[in-house]
């Protein structure tokens, strides 16, 4: 397992000091796939490098597998080569002067493992990532996807307790990214290695991870399983960054146990008020949760607004509709060519259990 406590890191840029990470705490259970998700410059890579020992935090502690590897207050700083890690870098960092075999065997050789074991382990791990048969190839002749596989093989060959991956899929094209992502997940499950993954791609984070930690401006703002983070964001940033969302400012009131949010477009009943009962909030409405119909639905009139379909954008497997409701444009998503033509007057239906209340927070 991995435990990070109160990790803080500053960088000096010229004569200014910039805080890259400000007091981040989290832990990754044994064998879990944990992802740090955030926009570029949010400090996620810095955290990964601090875990690896490639950067020294200014405060905090790092524990790897019940072993304290860094503590600012206790003056502990185990160098990277004694931390027993596997790391996959964004640029793969495959050594160009070595063959595929030599790259993969390096971690075992510097650990002075016996020759028979080295050969057996390298064969196993190259088979695992699907590079068997390419042992003698010079590394620079590999394609991008193959280099990525080799980087993974090299990171796993010595059976480390912890695997760190820094945006390993970002240099690949879309199709390959999807395929290698799935393979990575299945390899991680088979090997059972505790994994910390860094990405700015929310789709990647949601599909791969057991637990996602969303970061912005050096802080970890929400941690949880992908479904929970997606369905119940605790913070406007999380709602905005993870998936697409219509965010409407409004006022929450609870009457007789029924939570209602009043926005500029009207009131909506919410089944999941996030533990809140009243106050200024944001209403988070996912495009795929918004239903659009042409006939007024037969309900009690709650959670139905009327509006004008402004525009419909077709993008293959789905369509997006932009509906104007009293001054605000809402975005809805439906399958194929599901929407009536633009200009139609429509009714927008919001299922109460999909109307998510997000606290406005200090930032508003």
């Amino acid at each position, binding site marked *: 397992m991995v435990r990070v406590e109160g990790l803080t890191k500053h960088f000096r840029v010229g004569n200014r000091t910039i805080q890259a990470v400000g007091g981040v705490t989290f832990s990754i259970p044994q064998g879990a796939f944990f992802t740090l998700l955030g926009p570029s410059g949010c400090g996620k890579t810095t955290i990964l490098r601090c875990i690896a020992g490639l950067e020294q935090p200014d405060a905090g502690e790092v524990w790897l597998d019940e072993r304290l590897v860094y503590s600012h207050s206790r003056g502990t700083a185990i*160098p990277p*080569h*004694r931390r027993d890690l596997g790391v996959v*870098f964004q*640029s793969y960092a495959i*050594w160009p002067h070595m063959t595929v075999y030599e790259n993969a065997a*390096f971690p075992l050789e*510097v650990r002075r493992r016996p020759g028979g074991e080295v050969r057996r382990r390298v064969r196993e791990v190259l088979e695992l990532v699907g590079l068997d048969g390419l042992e003698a190839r010079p590394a620079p002749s590999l394609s991008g996807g193959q280099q990525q596989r080799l980087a993974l093989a090299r990171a796993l060959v010595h059976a480390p307790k912890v695997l760190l991956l820094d945006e390993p899929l970002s240099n690949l094209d879309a199709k390959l990214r999807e395929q290698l992502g799935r393979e990575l997940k299945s390899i991680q499950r088979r090997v059972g290695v505790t994994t910390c993954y860094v990405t700015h791609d929310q789709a990647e984070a949601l599909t791969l991870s057991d637990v996602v930690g969303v970061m912005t401006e050096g802080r970890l703002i929400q941690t949880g399983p992908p479904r929970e983070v997606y369905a119940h964001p605790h913070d406007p940033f999380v709602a905005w960054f993870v998936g697409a969302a219509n965010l409407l400012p409004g006022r929450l009131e609870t009457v007789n146990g029924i939570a209602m949010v009043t926005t500029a477009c009207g009131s909506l009943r919410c089944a999941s008020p996030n533990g809140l009962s009243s106050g200024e909030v944001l209403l988070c409405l996912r495009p795929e949760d918004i239903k659009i119909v042409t006939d007024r639905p037969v309900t009690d009139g709650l959670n139905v607004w009327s509006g004008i379909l402004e525009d419909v954008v077709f993008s293959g497997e789905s369509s997006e509709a932009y509906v104007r409701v009293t001054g605000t444009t809402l975005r809805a998503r439906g399958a194929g060519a599901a929407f009536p033509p633009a200009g139609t007057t429509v009714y927008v239906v919001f299922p109460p259990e999909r109307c998510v209340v997000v606290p406005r927070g200090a930032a508003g």
Partner: protein
Amino acid sequence: MSQAVPSRPFWRLSPAPGRGYSWPLVPSLASLAAAYLALSPVIFLIYGTLVGGDGPGQSLFASYLRAYTAPGAVRMLGNSVTYAAGAAVLSLLLGTILAWLHERTNTAFRGTLFILGIVPLILPGVLFTIAWIFLLSPNIGLVNLAARTLGVPTAPFNIYSLGGMIWVDGLHYSPFAFLMMSAAFRSMNPALEESAFVSGAGLGTTVRRITLRLMAPSLLSVFLLLFIRNLGTFEVPALIGRPAGIEVFTAKIWAATRRYPPDFGLAGVYALTLLLLTSVGLFVNSRLLRDTRRYATVTGEGFRGRVLDLGPWRAVTGAGVLAYLTIIALMPLAVLLWNSFLPFFMPPSRQALAAVTLHNYAVAFSYPQVARGLRNSLILAVGTAALTMLISASVAWMVVRSRTRGRWLLDVVATFPITLPGIVIGVGLIWTYLTLPVPIYGTLWILLIAYLTRFLPYGIRACGAALTQIHRELEDAGELSGGTWGVRFRRIVLPLLRPALIAGGTYILIVSVREFSSSVLLWGPRAEVLSVVLFDLWQSGLFQQVSAMGSALCAGLIVLAAAFWWVNRRQELNPG
């Protein structure tokens, strides 16, 4: 559009549709001039060694026979190679360690390396060498005198040895190795080293198995460049090697031209041999660079290297950096300055301080040849800088912009003299203007031609690089507005190139004032230049006056270099 215009050889006139002849005369003439300057010395050098020499009626290879059967020829070859390789190794060793400290660690005094560290590249080789003689000569060397006062019975250092030659030249060019290796470190992805660390390799294993292996092509390439440059260097062999009886090619070439009667055939053969050696080095180097491309890593951008925290070693390496800067910049400059104020050579003491005088400066500048040298050097430097940049801009335009066929050949030919040692150009030009009926040998004109030949390639490279940055459409727009070539060049190309022209011109001013190894062969009475006058005064034993004149020259060059740096920086801050 570009396919619609048929390409044509650059020597053929061709009418532009509807506008009569639009043949850009200026760049064509400039290209012809550049090609002539580049080719004539080598052609006449080969011609001269075969036909000239002993006068009419000699056999074709007489000069070659004489050169290679001369006593000591083999030893000279050995000396040359040992000296060039030894100095290259020293430069490379110092430069690589410093580059690593600078790019990859948080050593103390990191920032000063780039500023003070390149001072030796500004100083003329004659002065750097003289300064080190003042420091390490067995009789008057300050370091040896200091050792004696500390109780060492005999002088511990003797600069008049092969080791001494290697020491001085190795130090002098270590900043070059530092700059080249810094660039190499910057272009290497630090993740390659980091992945070794996290794979379980310590610093030693990582340096040995990853860093050094990946740097091997760069190391070898920089070594070869230094080796080639050292083979062609003249200052150290003339000032230290000859008194010590250690002959190398360059000093031998010079000696052959200065004896009476001068043996230009012998000089030519040795110059050609030198050229052959450097060409082999350059060929190997170009092959090497092609191989390094195989090593290109995923991303090609420069890398902000991880800064290795040296901890308590920071102070130790910082002390090393300070010691290095003291040795390469402070000590040579200080000893020159110290000497320039004394009536005769004295180690620092209270008596010496009492004797401090400006007399040497007054005497030095009262010599007519110093005044002439100053004037000539200034005329030559300004003339070379202006002409070089003008010709360079035109030739670069021809290479980069024109659609004529054969422009790659023009590029190859015009930049070829970059490979020629100064002394080879010198011998080549002697042969050229002794053969051609153009009586300029021994005048400022031949010096101007030599400087242009030496520095045009740098100007062409700089202008070519700048031109490729300027979008072709800017010029096409001018053409569509109806501007002729001259108007477009004056109104669009030259103003856009101005930053490159100013920076390049300043650089050429500096190197022209420093130029020595061609000048020493080509100068004549009343056509002296500063570096040659310094050398001459030194040969006459006027050490104090040399120091005074050298100190003044150093001050001037440092001011020029600071101006160069300032111009460059301003352009980086507000490009365009």
